[in-house]
């Protein structure tokens, strides 16, 4: 089987992290975002993966070559010379996607969920039509495009963009499976799959929807990255608690704490809920962490307090410093001792030695 992952551009929404690393390589729960997707695809029998990208940084090529070898999968970069939207990349990768008659997966690289590719494949083959859209239920559908099905059926009837009146609460989750015949519908130019391709397929009664179990999150920006991390850790606590720090660990508070085996934690810390501690991280004594992500080689000094923050690679948080309010530190940032940062986005290699009391960007 084959799959195409829509990676797109520079990931500006996840800056300052993406100033240092391409977005697909940013670690989500200690593994690169794209690895979550590739592993799930491989598990469902996928052997060919196309990454649809606007640019091809060397660091990404190197990492993905490693994944190719480790997972026994072929990964091809399909580089757009101009952004082709959400459908155009399928046309660009036509050679690979149509090399046999088996269906192929398409997914948005910003999405994190439990990736039910096997069940999706089985459902798709069973109904036999051209496409299946994974849908997820949301509380406030008015912000999204809502998928409306024919009564008592999985057949999609129509799409309602940002509905004013309640028509349903299932939205497009950005994960699909299609028969190669869809490629006949897509021209090689900038095209939106949601607006230009799906309505025609719905009119032809050849599009179904598949209900997603469990959580779903677009983690393309810092606030949602943190929310997605919380949802992912909650899901792990149910499905693979062995990947989390045991509740019996002296520092764990409220559970849902992931600690990389190479990380070191001082005494009298209180960590959790919803914390990811990356490789080679060193945490001092009396540190309080909750709802935060510490990336590779972060140093958190004694008595620091962190909530709702992403601490970028190699950064240091000084003694008695306090980070909160969706603060994001880029690579190699130093926060001096006793500093308070509320909602600061700090670009790489900066030293912060005075308070940042209101959300702002530190260039």
């Amino acid at each position, binding site marked *: 089987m084959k799959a195409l992952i829509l990676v797109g551009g520079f990931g500006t929404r996840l800056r300052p992290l993406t100033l240092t690393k391409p977005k697909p390589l940013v670690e989500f729960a200690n593994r690169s975002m794209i690895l979550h997707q590739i592993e799930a695809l491989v598990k469902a029998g996928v052997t060919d993966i196309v990454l649809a990208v606007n640019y091809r940084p060397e660091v990404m090529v190197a990492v993905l070559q490693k994944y190719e070898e480790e997972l026994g999968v072929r990964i091809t970069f399909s580089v757009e010379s101009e952004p082709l939207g959400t459908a155009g990349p399928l046309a660009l990768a036509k050679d690979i996607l149509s090399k046999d008659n088996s269906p192929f997966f398409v997914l948005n690289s910003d999405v994190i969920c439990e990736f039910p590719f096997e069940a999706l494949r089985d459902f798709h083959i069973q109904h036999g039509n051209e496409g299946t859209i994974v849908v997820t239920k949301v509380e406030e559908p008015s912000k999204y495009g809502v998928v409306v099905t024919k009564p008592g059926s999985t057949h999609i009837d129509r799409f309602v963009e940002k509905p004013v009146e309640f028509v349903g609460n299932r939205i497009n989750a950005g994960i699909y499976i299609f028969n190669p015949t869809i490629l006949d519908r897509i021209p090689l130019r900038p095209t939106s799959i949601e607006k230009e391709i799906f309505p025609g397929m719905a009119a032809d009664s050849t599009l179904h929807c598949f209900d997603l179990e469990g959580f779903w999150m677009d983690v393309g920006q810092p606030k949602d990255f943190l929310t997605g991390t919380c949802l992912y850790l909650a899901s792990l606590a149910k499905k693979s608690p062995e990947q989390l720090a045991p509740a019996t660990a002296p520092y764990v508070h409220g559970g849902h704490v992931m600690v990389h085996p190479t990380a070191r934690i001082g005494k009298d810390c209180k960590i959790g809920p919803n914390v990811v501690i990356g490789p080679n991280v060193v945490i001092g004594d*009396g540190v309080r962490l909750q709802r935060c992500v510490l990336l590779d080689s972060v140093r958190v000094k004694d008595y620091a307090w962190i909530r709702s923050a992403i601490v970028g690679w190699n950064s240091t948080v000084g003694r008695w410093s306090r980070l909160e309010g969706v603060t994001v530190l880029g690579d190699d940032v130093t926060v001096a001792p006793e500093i308070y940062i509320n909602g600061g986005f700090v670009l790489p290699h900066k030293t912060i030695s005075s308070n940042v009391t209101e959300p702002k960007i530190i260039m």
Partner: protein
Amino acid sequence: MSTVKAVILVGGPSRGTRFRPLSMNVPKPLFPVAGRPIIWHPIAALAKLKQVTEILLVGFFEDFVFREFLDSCSAEFPNIHFKYLREYQSLGTAGGIYHFRNEILRHSPQHIFVLHADVCCSYPLAEMLAFHEAQGRGGTIMGTRVERDDAHRYGCLVADTETNEVLHYVEKPETFISDLISCGVGVFKYSALFDTIRAALEARHQQMEEDRAYEWPSRSTETDDYDVLRLEQDVLRPLAADHQLTVYVTPSFWRQIKSAGSAIPANAAYLDQMLQSHSTALTPPSSATAGPEIVGAVSIHPSARIDPTAKIGPHVSIGPRVTVGPGVRVKNSILLDGVDIKPNSCVLNSVIGWRSKLGSWVRVEGTPVSGRHDLEAITNAGVKNQSITILGQEVVVADECIIRNCIVLPNKELRSSFHDDILM
């Protein structure tokens, strides 16, 4: 050797509202700064002068207010007589002195120091008295130079640069007069002080007679006003006009203690002075052995318990019976009697009121006051910001909260974080 007396003007309970919420629990002159009441600092400086025989506090607090404090002063400075003189009606700073003239002039002192209680300075009183006696004029006031933009907040002096004679004195001028200001500390020949007040009083009464003759309506019912005399207006100005006033410019620090937040820079200034004079009242810097990390000038009461993993200073005063837990950081702050701080908390640029309790990982933070004039709470669109944080008596702050740039009235229980606010 001449004999000298001192009068410290301590005001009354209706004064010092700007010192709230700290003045709600202690009269402002007795609020501890650098481990000692505000008025202890001038008293200790006066006690170093051999000529000083008596120190009188004049104000309109109730009698019992200063009793205990003056008893302790008598024990500490046995060669000096202390007394509190209570005004029953506010007669103004000069009016109060004149009212108690018999008490002040008993035993015929040659010179009288007059000090405002809300001053924080190095009190170079021996030098000032020597200067005053050498000049031989009626009075000498302490002066200091301030930023040009701040001068209008004070009494401004124009002085002859060679003779130090004060040529002109204006209280809080609207336009710029001079960057040399009066520090609120003066020393006067007894005769010059009382003759000037008496002359001012006579001029007032004559004015009263004239006003009555013309039935001046707005004043006819407020005869008391005629007895209200102010030191600046009614003594310093006429002395300057008579060429009887000189200025002694202090070579060291000076600032006022007006708002509650101004206790913090005053605390820092006194602690630094103690550090320079190698005072044994300071806590010695941390050694390699066990004990809390002490940075710079710090005063810790012997009955306070500080965990060895805490870091304290610079510019911290910790009162009696305070408990500071493991991993706590305190900087540029005053912790009053009985404060309890749980582990890993951080207190910066703040005053923590009597018996207040801070939970774990609490952060109480103010903004350090810059500049020398007394910064009041600056308000921006009705929101208070950028100031020292003050917690009143018995305030409780829950675990992990941040209280930043806030003034918190006594007995509040704070269960969430607050910024830039006054919490009633």
